[in-house]
């Protein structure tokens, strides 16, 4: 410490006494208010460390005197929101569909909850807005395999299709080709009949002529259809939701509208699986999803 404070002649400011090669340092301390704010911050920091989680030690950490935890706060907030939502979800669980449809407030909650749940769980297969794709039904179109009433949709979501659930919807299309019940030539005949009679010839995008000449196998195919297929799919291809037999007389088909898809399905059918959601979604949420799916435009 310099014993004698020297004043700088040019500025009239005190010097600190430090000197480097004749250059002297002026003593221009920080403003007082700044220093006090800084000191107050230090005091504050100690209080903060004491009250809130701060010092880590090995396997754990000091939890602070307030015992605060951001995880606990989130849990608490989620529980609060759940409690507010529960009032409506309980009503949705308890009321029959007809009563929910008449209650605009419940409908708003159901459609919102249904849309969010659908986006998270159903959309990966069924597409946004239930647009569907090959192998996954277009829910918006209303080409229901297992029925499109609210109760039927709820049943399908709850127990699934070929999901292994005890009450799952299940149906078997026999592998006519693989098992040898129909010869490949016969399958071609059936496919030609189904394609030319039932499938929408105006179906966009997928028409690929050249597999067979229409009319050639139709008569033989019609006989084979009546003998083998009509029992489930109906004489006029109208299908039967009771067995999950798809409607053939339609423009919308689960595996696309190519003639080749018919051949494939008759020879060695693909049997799609829809998971049962009763283990993952609560009954009220399933009802909400059913209401949302029903509202996409195809509901019966």
């Amino acid at each position, binding site marked *: 410490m310099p014993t004698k404070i020297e004043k700088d002649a040019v500025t009239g400011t005190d010097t600190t006494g430090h000197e480097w090669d004749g250059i002297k340092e002026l003593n221009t301390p920080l403003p007082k208010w700044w220093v006090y704010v800084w000191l107050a911050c230090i005091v504050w920091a100690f209080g903060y460390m004491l009250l809130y989680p701060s010092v880590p030690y090995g396997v754990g950490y000091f939890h602070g005197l307030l015992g605060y935890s951001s995880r606990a706060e989130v849990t608490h907030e989620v529980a609060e929101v759940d409690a507010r939502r529960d009032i409506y979800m309980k009503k949705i669980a308890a009321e029959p569909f007809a009563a929910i*449809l008449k209650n605009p407030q419940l*409908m708003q909650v159901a459609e919102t909850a249904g849309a969010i749940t659908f986006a998270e769980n159903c959309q990966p297969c069924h*597409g*946004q*807005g*239930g*647009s569907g794709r090959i192998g996954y039904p*277009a829910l*918006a*179109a*209303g*080409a229901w395999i297992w029925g499109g009433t609210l109760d039927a949709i709820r049943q399908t979501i709850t127990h699934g299709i070929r999901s292994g659930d005890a009450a799952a919807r299940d149906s078997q299309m026999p592998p006519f080709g693989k098992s040898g019940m129909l010869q490949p030539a016969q399958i071609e005949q059936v496919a*030609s009949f189904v*394609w*030319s009679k039932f499938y*929408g*010839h*105006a*179906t*966009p*995008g997928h*028409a690929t*002529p*050249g*597999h*067979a*000449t*229409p009319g050639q196998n139709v008569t033989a195919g019609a006989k084979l259809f009546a003998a083998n297929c009509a029992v489930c799919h109906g004489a006029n291809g109208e299908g039967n939701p009771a067995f999950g037999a798809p*409607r053939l007389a*339609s*423009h*919308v088909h689960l595996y696309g509208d190519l*003639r080749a898809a018919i051949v494939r399905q008759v020879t060695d059918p693909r049997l799609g699986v829809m998971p049962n959601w009763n283990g993952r979604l609560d009954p009220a949420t399933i009802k909400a999803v059913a209401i949302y799916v029903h*509202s996409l*435009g*195809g*509901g*019966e």
Partner: protein
Amino acid sequence: MAAMSRVEERRRQLEQSLGGEHLYANRVRVYSKAVKGPMRRVKWAVLAFCLTIYYLLPWLRWDRGIGRPSQAVLLDIAARRYYFFGLEFWPQDIYLLTGTLIVAAVGLFLVTSLFGRVWCGYACPQTVWTDLFMWFEREIEGDRNERMKRDAGPLGLDKLWRKAAKHATWLFIAFWTGGAWIMYFADAPTITRQFWTGAAPLPAYFFTGLFTFTTYALAGWGREQVCTYMCPWPRFQSAMLDEQSLTTTYQAWRGEPRAHGKRDPSAPPAGDCVDCGACYTACPMGIDIRDGIQLECINCGLCIDACDHVMRITGKPERLIAWDTLADQKAKQEGRSVRFRLWRPRTVIYFAALAIAMTAMLTALALRASLAIDVEHDRAPLFVLLPDGGIRNGYTVNLTNRTQAWAPFALSVTGLPGATLANGTTPRERHRVLTLSVAPDSIADFRVLLTAPPDAPKAPRRPIGFVLRNPTTGAQTSYGGAFMGPATYSGGGP
């Protein structure tokens, strides 16, 4: 010379405080003297008119029917409805507010180019409340000389109670001003009752407090400093003024050289100005009009009244300080006179702009639609192929009903023959014309499903029109939308 030295003193103080270590000029307190005369009477009349409207307008009732606000002027922020007598505005009408502000601005330009800053001198809220506060100040503390003497003297009982009474009065007026402000945003009798029972919403107390503070601070303490330092208007007013604008003008050709006392024929000739100081002691801005037109002058004309009084005493013609144009002043110096020109290119342009803006506003107001439609196409799926071969598109339709009755809107579609419409909640009930009811004075969203029959020609995108009609009023509007279909199509074949 005492009077002259006050102006010198003020100038010296300003220069001193601006030089050296001071960043800002210290305020030199303005003690304006009371005057009587025609300008003063006009100023009082404008003050009474403006303040009566401000304080009493919220209490004016207006019958709009049951369940609707009965206040003539009400800005209902929470419900997003703004009422002006028989008119009701929605936030969507913001363009009308923009237009009103344009009309106000151009109107201000026009008036300023004709008569100088009369807005500042007579009608600006800052002037009006400052004038009101000054009146109370004079009533309690006395006129200029008395106030100056007391302020310079020591703090005694007399000074203390007068100051306390003045500030209490100011605060009371300020509180009343803040309280009147919130009444424009809620039902006046209700909010008054709630305010005093502690039941009013927090913003009511906050804004009352805020405007109490600003009124007290700006009209009591800020005064001419608000005009000189805070307000942007004086800074660009010179762009509107020219030598043909009427302003408060000292007729230097007649007044100079100024001299005290009786005019002595043997002495060098002197002008009409007796240098009494009446003009600048009356000035609320603390300036001397004899220095010419200047930034601080708000064109209130109080110096005209003050000088006329002295001219009458000295037996000289009145209006040594007068409303006049710079052009006329210049001419008079040469012994001529020019007439005030009302129509100049500047005023014609301002007037034309004002007329156009007002016509556009009134037309827009008169043609406001009572219904509106907005349509949003579903993002996904763009279209749905139906089992029967038809194509369906989904839309969210937003309908506005601005009438005071339920609107049983009829929605139909053009450009898509055979198309049917269905409400999203009942997709199987398909109609050519769909009825969608919207509550009075509100907006509603509907999900609408539009289905083209199987035999309709298919196209990736087909422009269509939504037509909305209100059968009860006959009003109709439309929206240009699109109907989406398959991107590719090839006809039959196996």
